[in-house]
């Protein structure tokens, strides 16, 4: 365990650079004398050293679950990692309202929905509805936002139509179900439709959901992405600062 340069990092168990991590997984092997070693070899193949198989349990006929601790040699050079981050100042609701009034001078229109088969409205409601989330009021509560919340289970096409018809500034898409990457497929479909209509620069496009993050959203063609625990004021602040940028151009 030699100490690495400070920008190079390894996993930290209880000492710098010890590389300790924990794994759990199930293998389709019968529980028995050999199972533990198979689990060990599996972890070794993944690149762990000094593998400690701490649990080997039968989860069903022909299936064995493992818990493993081991040392892992993955080294990251954090300075070299380039991560897109959303750069904007987060204001309170009162501040955002004042700023929009002063610098934009008109109501910002946003249209939001959870499209596709996805019926989870709680997330988009948390951002848009009066009630808000974790004590932070939703966009409907803002003086300078005009909100159209279309709920869930509508098509991407409908969402775009609505945005056009009300003359929205921003479209907020929520995606909660991620099984077999349905959220990515549906988001791509949404962006494709926008692009086909030549509307990519017409709207600020925002993607949100518990498994969304900014880099993912950007890679799917959105302007920004917001994940688990997002507060409405963060989204409001982002939209405001984006509007300001667009105005300046």
């Amino acid at each position, binding site marked *: 365990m030699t100490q690495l340069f400070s920008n190079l990092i390894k996993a930290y168990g209880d000492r710098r650079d010890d590389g300790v991590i924990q794994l*759990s*997984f*199930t293998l389709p092997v019968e529980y028995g004398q050999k199972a533990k070693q198979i689990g060990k070899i599996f972890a070794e193949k993944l690149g762990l050293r000094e593998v400690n198989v701490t649990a080997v*349990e039968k*989860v*069903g*006929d022909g*299936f064995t*679950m493992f818990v493993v601790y081991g040392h892992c040699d993955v080294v990251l050079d954090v300075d070299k990692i380039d991560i897109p981050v959303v750069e904007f100042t987060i204001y309170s609701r009162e501040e955002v309202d004042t700023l929009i009034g002063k610098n934009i001078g008109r109501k910002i229109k946003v249209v939001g929905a959870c499209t596709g*088969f996805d*019926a989870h*409205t*709680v997330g988009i*409601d948390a951002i848009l509805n009066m009630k808000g989330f974790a004590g932070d009021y939703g966009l409907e509560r803002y003086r300078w936002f005009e909100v159209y919340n279309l709920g869930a*289970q509508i098509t991407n096409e409908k969402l775009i139509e609505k945005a056009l018809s009300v003359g929205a500034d921003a479209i907020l898409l929520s995606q909660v*179900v*991620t*099984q*077999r990457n*349905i959220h990515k497929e549906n988001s791509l479909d949404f962006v494709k439709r926008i692009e086909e209509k030549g509307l990519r620069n017409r709207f600020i496009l925002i993607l949100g959901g*518990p498994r969304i993050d900014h880099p993912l959203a950007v890679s799917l063609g959105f302007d920004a992405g917001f994940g*688990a625990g997002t507060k409405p004021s963060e989204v409001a602040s982002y939209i405001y600062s984006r509007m300001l940028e667009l105005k300046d151009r």
Partner: protein
Amino acid sequence: MLKIRYDRKIVADSREYAAKIAGDIYNRFIRGFSTDSIERTTLRFLGVEGATSLGQPKVNSVVEKVKKNSDISLGVLLAVAREMAVSGADFQSAVNIVSDGTLSSIPPSREALEKAKNNIKRLAVLKYEELAGKRRKREEFKKSFQPQKTPLRYLIVATGNIYDDVIQARAAAEAGADIIAVIRSTAQSLLDYVPEGATTEGYGGTYATQENFRIMREALDDVSKKLGRYIYLTNYSSGLCMPEIAFLGAFEGLDVLLNDAMYGILFRDINMKRTFCDQFFSRMICAVSRIIINTGEDNYLTTSDAVERAHTVLTSLFINEAFAKIAGMKPEYMGLGHAFEINPQIEDSFSLELSQALLIRHIFPKSPIKYMPPTKHMTGDPFYSNLLDAMFNLASKMSNQHIHLLGMMTEAMHNPLIMDRYESLKNVNYIFNAASSLASQIQIRKDSLINRRAQEVLSKAYELLQKVQKEGLDNAISNGEFADIKRYSDSGKGVEGVYKKGKEYFNPVFDILLEKTGGER
């Protein structure tokens, strides 16, 4: 059981209000109406199965054709009877003719029609007996095992592939599950037909089909014998095909069905009238087949706050109970549902949960109450989320719930992996055993938060019932009283499939069910 204090008079009054609320809906929206799905169920009941050459389920085709070529308000069976009367065809052939759209336009003679109708009536009696026979056989099979200790351990499988589901279900049963629920593909509730055959796809589950029911039932019967413990099978009937799925479930020996009087309205935007009719018919089937239904009040707490709106759950339970009574169900089969969904960061959250759980257990003492695990406040950290499940397990054991849905420590991530389910069973097995007789050793203090909270929830539920009774349930729903969701009586999916029965409406299956269930209507 651990005793709590609450005003029993308010409970009695609440029940009365609920009876009025449901009775009003029955009179205004159910009695005198039929729906596409009720008609299709009638056909299935009489043995119509399979698909047309275009791949459409035959029962759908028949109903569609009757709507197009005849008068659906008199019931599909009248159209079939007519065809039988005119062409002399037997029931099945007549059904095929109607389905093909080639039914004759000549009006039948009165006598021939009577005879045909009588034939169908006889068939209905026969089929009813067949179903009853199945039910009896299953009950006998069940009785050959020792009854399990409650709370029963209810586990979901949701791989999206029925064959993988079987693997997971077997593993779960071996690890201690008492009930296996096969989760349906998302949005099946919005399909206006029941898919056919064994299915290996879906999101978040695979389809509820007759064949899938059969495959899983067979596997579980096999495991039951192996383990010497009866394994219950659950699926979902909610949605546009509620009565059809109820029938298929009954036919294939399911023990439990998700079946709520309002879930489809609120959470799937299915039309109110449609849902009211369908739930009634489907519950009559459950009643005669002694299927335990599960209601979905737990869902309210995913969109509403579990502390502020706890009483809406109780209000809805009273209403669901009243609807079930109208359909002729016994309390022993009313698996009313509630949930452990309070924000875990609230001080005394466990006491509040326990209070709610005890209150519901007390108010519906004979019902196999279904208790749902924490979901909304589960996080991406499985070590932590597993703890919420542990406290849920403890609350369930201490309040002796009947059907205990196992929580998954990966609730916030994905459909359960095989090991998630296994860990969940380890959790529940540990807690139930460690706290085995804890509840019987303690008493709740008179002036405690637990008692105060129970009384508060009950009073609020009562007030809401009063209000709903005044407004009518349809209007209350339009006002967003439940789950903070608003729905209107003339919108929503499936509204086009509801019709007022004509004077000559003919449906002996309906009649038998009405007779056999003898509900409070």
